[in-house]
């Protein structure tokens, strides 16, 4: 049986290392914060200007001046610092953040990422995603293996406008885990319980080595 959203987040949390500064994207990546392994101390960065993001507030603690990049109300921790958007992206672009975990619409076998635009249909914008994938040391994508219509999302080449070229290091889907050697190729390194290599092949357009 394939992984559900929480299990994908739990798997992604294994990529966290002690002392890491981490930026989590919106959606499934946000859930990763619920699965930080014991003994691993990580500091969460929010690109709107905060290091040391705490959990959601209790009802009587809600502060309109304290939100995350998804515009959700959050809390601060004893380690927290605040800064401007320019400082926040200096941190991101300058390579000071260790890991970014984010969602995607498409990923190519060379590590290209598309997650910000569907021409003529969806105009939301890239927010900080282009800066994150350009600057953060390691980029992990968490996404469903196929679209709601059943189309593969791991492709030879992305069909949608790119967020970044050769920027993804790992993809975690409901079917398994792929490692990407940026610009070279990808390999399947783990399968979700009950999923076979043939199941993965049937839902994947991208070429990949099998290393499970």
């Amino acid at each position: 049986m394939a992984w559900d959203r929480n299990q994908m987040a739990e798997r992604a949390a294994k990529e966290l290392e002690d002392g890491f500064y981490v930026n989590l994207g919106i959606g499934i990546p946000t859930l990763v914060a619920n699965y930080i392994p014991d003994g691993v101390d990580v500091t969460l960065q929010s690109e709107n200007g905060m290091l040391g993001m705490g959990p959601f507030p209790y009802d009587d603690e809600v502060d309109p001046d304290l939100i995350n990049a998804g515009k959700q109300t959050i809390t601060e921790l004893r380690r927290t610092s605040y800064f401007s958007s320019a400082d926040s992206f200096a941190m991101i672009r300058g390579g000071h953040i260790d890991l970014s975990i984010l969602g995607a619409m498409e990923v190519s076998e060379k590590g290209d990422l598309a997650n910000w635009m569907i021409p003529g249909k969806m105009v939301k914008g890239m927010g900080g995603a282009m800066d994150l994938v350009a600057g953060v040391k390691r980029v992990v994508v968490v996404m469903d293996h196929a679209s709601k219509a059943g189309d593969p999302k791991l492709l030879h080449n992305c069909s949608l406008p790119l967020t970044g070229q050769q920027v993804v290091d790992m993809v975690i889907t409901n079917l398994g885990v792929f490692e990407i050697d940026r610009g070279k190729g990808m390999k399947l390194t783990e399968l979700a319980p009950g999923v076979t290599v043939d199941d993965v092949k049937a839902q994947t357009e991208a070429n990949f080595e099998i290393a499970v």
Partner: protein
Amino acid sequence: MKKIYPDARAALDGLTFDGMTVMSGGFGLCGIAENLIVALRDSGVKDLTVISNNAGVDDFGLGLLLQTRQIKKMISSYVGENKEFERQYLSGELELEFNPQGTLAERCRAGGAGIPGFYTKTGVGTLIAEGKEHKEFDGETYIMETGLVADLSIVKAWKGDEQGNLVFRKTARNFNPMMATAGKVTVAEVEEIVPLGSLDPDCIHTPGVYVQRLIKGEHEKRVEQRTVRQRETA
């Protein structure tokens, strides 16, 4: 020179003209100049180019200026929370220039710091890079982005004094400090005007040189996504 004005309308008096460029601070609805946005709407100024990370929601923040069609063009990184924006853009009524969020922040910072252009690796190989100068540094490709300045910057701070020194609060700081530096005229609205000398000079976020006019505003501080957790019951 007296910087403190009685209200938002008075603070914008003589500053607005059709076709002007306005920078508007804030991230989502957090740290936006609520009072000055309303005053800008009420001034009736048209054909605005607005530089702001987001575009508000339909009935609050910059959404108010979209409702009245006073905005001709937006320069933003994310506009996903505004249906009227999407409608006006897809129907061709509104021009839109998307900038990656960090590039937008740095363009404002650079503009205010007298830096006309800079190189960044953000957006290389994407639509954002089309038509821009590419240059290699140490084997890596970068694109050139330009600094931004505005005819008017409107920013929101927590506290300010009569000299225009500003202190922001928590994540309501966001784009406000850079935009304060990049306006030919910067008008700030604060929650509290404090006596001179009561702000710790070591902890001032925006020095008063960047702020020409200041008002005390009334702030609704609308929350876009109220997310809470439950206390465990004993």
